């Protein structure tokens, strides 16, 4: 049976690499609530393309560096 695809993200690591940025701060910078950042880090929410780009831009990284699609 095929495994369900998984979206992994490096947001937590990137936040700490960028001066221990808080979830609240990241949320404010990309225009979402802290709860959405929590859901993203837990791998329970797949962001829109626009949000993925906004998050990547905050960390000065590519989308692929922040999100990895595994199937």
């Amino acid at each position: 049976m095929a495994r369900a695809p998984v979206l992994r993200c490096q947001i937590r690591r990137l936040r700490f690499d960028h001066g221990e940025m808080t979830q609240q701060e990241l949320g404010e910078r990309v225009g979402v609530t802290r709860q959405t950042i929590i859901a993203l880090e837990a791998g329970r929410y797949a962001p829109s393309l626009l949000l993925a780009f906004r998050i990547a831009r905050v960390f000065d990284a590519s989308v692929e560096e922040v999100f990895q699609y595994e199937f």
Partner: protein
Amino acid sequence: MTPLQKMAWIEASFWIAATLVFLALLVRFGPGPAPAAFALIGLHPIAWYAMQRRSAARAFQPVLDERDQEISARASRFGFATSYVAFVLGIVGLQQYALRAGDCVPASGLMALVWLAVALQTLVRNASVILQARAQEAEGRG
């Protein structure tokens, strides 16, 4: 808790209260005046206003992001589907009741059924919002 979840709790509380008052009136006065209980729903915006005032930093600007909208849309579909099925089953029940009684379908019964269907839709939608949001946020705090 996001503004969406807070709003879901407030809305659900009002509809639960209105439904309980409706049931009490139904028992006491019958199906005619009972739907008057749903006038309580008119107070709902006051609670929302009070909640907004407490959050001075974001007064009148609830932060609803794309995840909230997605959750809300999914919950609304679920609420409407549930309410539709319940309403149709209620209509069938009323019709059967009328057939057995050899009478026509009571207008007060139809009215009560409409209000109950709306109450069910709102309750299911808000419960779904709260459960979805909690499930997505679980195990992710820190």
